[in-house]
């Protein structure tokens, strides 16, 4: 047992840190550090910088052009990016669909899709949820009917994050209504420029446009865009989920934001108010405990001995912590968190801030963070899963 990273791991971390320091545009990290609005250009600019270095697919094995890092290295990479104020890697391409294409796609598909994902050129979206299928994803209804060498897709996806920028979308579609709901689902890649695809914004309670409805009206999809076998899509999707582990805890971001919370509390004069300070102290312990939990999972993966099946705990705790720091930042500003001036949440606003610039986006961030206990399998679903592992 040892808490310290090995010298090799430390060296790895320092190399990443130096590179990020050199290559992360300051205007972008400024926005991240201050919860200001990130444009499509910001996100894609950073994605392409990573892509050029070969690190956008930082979880990829060497055979597909990735760095072939182990779990600890991936964690250190994520941590250095987060602490430096890099935008989160938009996961739909490199983290979500790419592993599925690698594992279940054919050579042709791999050759066709992976380079655009690795370089950050092509923006992918995820088409899973539907209006009637939230926690109960397997009940999805979007149909794909095979007609010759094409699928005709009809239906609707929703909560599709950043689909307004999407060029391709990977979808779970129903290709059969026989048997259990899970067995009739296929995994299809769809060009969003195809006729019949419509994207409609969903405005969130913070006023932001982050998610969308995506409608499919007799969309023709070449059959060659089917991943693996028809009706096996559920299996592939589950494989994908198993690739998301420690990252869902978002502990690195939590560390960054906890430091920001302390800065804001100091600026607002509440860091020395024992009542408020105690709330930060509680969160401090929460973050340390979450990080230890994450490190335990990493250690188990590294050793390959006993895997720790606690992804549900990481999701629950991580999201609770995200909500809490966003809430405390807002409370730190007190009355000055009340103004809701959208322009003040953009970088470079020349208006007069109410209170201080750091106050402007805090309520919006608190609102936005409500999603974290809902998406990616709501915390209630996660508790079901945890209970299942404990109680049977």
């Amino acid at each position, binding site marked *: 047992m040892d808490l310290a990273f090995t010298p090799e791991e430390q060296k790895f971390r320092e190399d990443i840190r130096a590179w990020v320091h050199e290559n992360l545009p300051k205007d972008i990290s400024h926005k991240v550090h201050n919860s200001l609005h990130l444009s499509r250009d910001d996100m894609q600019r950073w994605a392409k910088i990573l892509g050029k270095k070969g690190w956008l697919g930082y979880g990829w094995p060497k055979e597909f052009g990735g760095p072939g890092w182990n779990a600890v290295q991936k964690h250190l990479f994520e941590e250095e990016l987060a602490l430096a104020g890099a935008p989160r890697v938009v996961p739909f391409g490199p983290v979500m669909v790419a592993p599925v294409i690698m594992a279940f796609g054919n050579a042709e598909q791999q050759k066709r899709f992976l380079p655009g994902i690795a370089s950050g050129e092509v923006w992918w979206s995820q088409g899973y949820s539907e209006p009637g299928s939230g926690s109960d994803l397997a009940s999805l209804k979007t149909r794909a009917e095979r007609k010759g060498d094409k699928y005709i897709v009809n239906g609707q996806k929703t909560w599709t994050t950043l689909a307004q920028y999407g060029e391709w979308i990977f979808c779970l579609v129903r290709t059969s209504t026989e048997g259990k709901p899970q067995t009739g689902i296929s995994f299809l890649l769809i060009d969003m420029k195809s006729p019949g695809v419509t994207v409609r914004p969903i405005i*969130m309670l913070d006023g932001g446009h982050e998610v969308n409805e995506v409608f499919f009206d007799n969309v023709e999809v070449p059959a060659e865009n089917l991943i693996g076998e028809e009706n096996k899509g559920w299996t592939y999707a589950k494989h994908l989920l198993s690739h998301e582990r420690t990252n869902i805890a978002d502990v690195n971001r939590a560390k960054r934001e906890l430091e920001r919370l302390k800065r804001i509390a100091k600026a*607002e004069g509440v860091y020395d108010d024992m009542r408020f300070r105690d709330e930060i102290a509680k969160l401090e312990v929460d973050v340390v405990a979450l990080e230890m939990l994450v490190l335990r999972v990493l250690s188990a993966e590294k050793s390959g001995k006993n895997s720790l099946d606690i992804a549900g705990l990481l999701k629950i705790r991580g999201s609770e912590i995200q909500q809490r720091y966003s809430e405390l930042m807002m409370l730190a500003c007190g009355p000055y968190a009340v103004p809701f001036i959208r322009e003040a949440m953009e970088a470079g606003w020349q208006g007069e801030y109410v209170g201080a610039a750091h106050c402007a986006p805090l309520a919006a961030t608190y609102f936005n963070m*409500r999603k974290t206990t809902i998406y990616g399998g709501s915390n209630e679903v996660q508790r079901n899963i945890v209970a299942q592992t404990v109680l049977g």
Partner: protein
Amino acid sequence: MDFEFSDDQQQLRDAVRKWVDRSYDFDKRRAITRAGGFDRNVYTELAGLGLTGLYVSEDDGGMGMGPVEGMVVMEELGRGMVHEPIAQSLIAGGVLSGYAGADLKAAWLPRIAGNEALVVLAYVERKARWKLDVCETQAQQAGGGWTVSGAKSVVTAGDQADAFLVPAIAGGKMALFLVERSAAGVSANGYLTIDGGRAAEVKFANSPATLVTTDGLAALQHAVDIGIAALCAETVGVMDKTVDLTVEYMNTRKQFGVTLSTFQALRHRVADMKMQLELARSMSYYASLKLNAPAEERRRAMSRAKYQLGNSARFISQASVQLHGGIGVTEEYIGSHYFKKLTQVELTFGDTLHHLGEVSAHMQDTAGVFA
């Protein structure tokens, strides 16, 4: 000991509810937010119902009513999340009635009751946070009158109001002044608030002011306490509706082939929401029934009430969004606006931690409602 509403109070409630149902639906409210978060025509309608003069005596053209009537009205306005700030009229009516001289009363109370003047409290300062006794705004005697200089933050409908109640330091001691928005040196920079309503940063530069009272801290405390009682009642209305919406959604939305209301873990969350709602309603009653108590007792009661309401609002707002799932975090769904309203409650007239501190600092050896 009696918590039943009189027939008159019930009629008042019905009248306000009927107005909200008829004249202030979600689309109307949303349009007002898009237009800036305040609608003077709506305010005029509310004045027509007598609500702006609730705490103004009948002699001065008001309704001459008390805290229970104020509570009834605010509960109903809360259910509709009405932006237009009747609570501010209650504060202005109550404070001027209690602290101003006869001339000032005669000049302003009929105008408040008659909707000629929207008078709002302008007291938040950058260095004060929730403390009422921290004040950098200064008052100077000039000729026969006064001027004030300073800046007040997050003033409700501050760029729409006709006049402000402004605490300022006069001769080393806090006094309370009335300043008209049209007065020289007054500027108001308005903006939307997180609940979709309106507020402003208001600055005074040697602005002519009328003295309300030299006992400024007592008057300010009283003003805030009227505001807390009104806010508690409003919050009960907001939460009542939030729980209704959640129940309706859970009995409609299906997952895994059954309604959400089938799941025990979610059912228990709703039971906890009901608990928080009824505790909050109880403490809102308590606040209104203590609003005319002696200052020390009144202030202790308001802090207790605001602490409970803050806790309840936090739990109910967060649980409601969570139980709704995705739809709960969308702008188009009314529920998310209830969530935002309840968030703003926490950031108004002192947050929950602040009032915990007040409760803690003023505890007595005895316990309970009558202690």
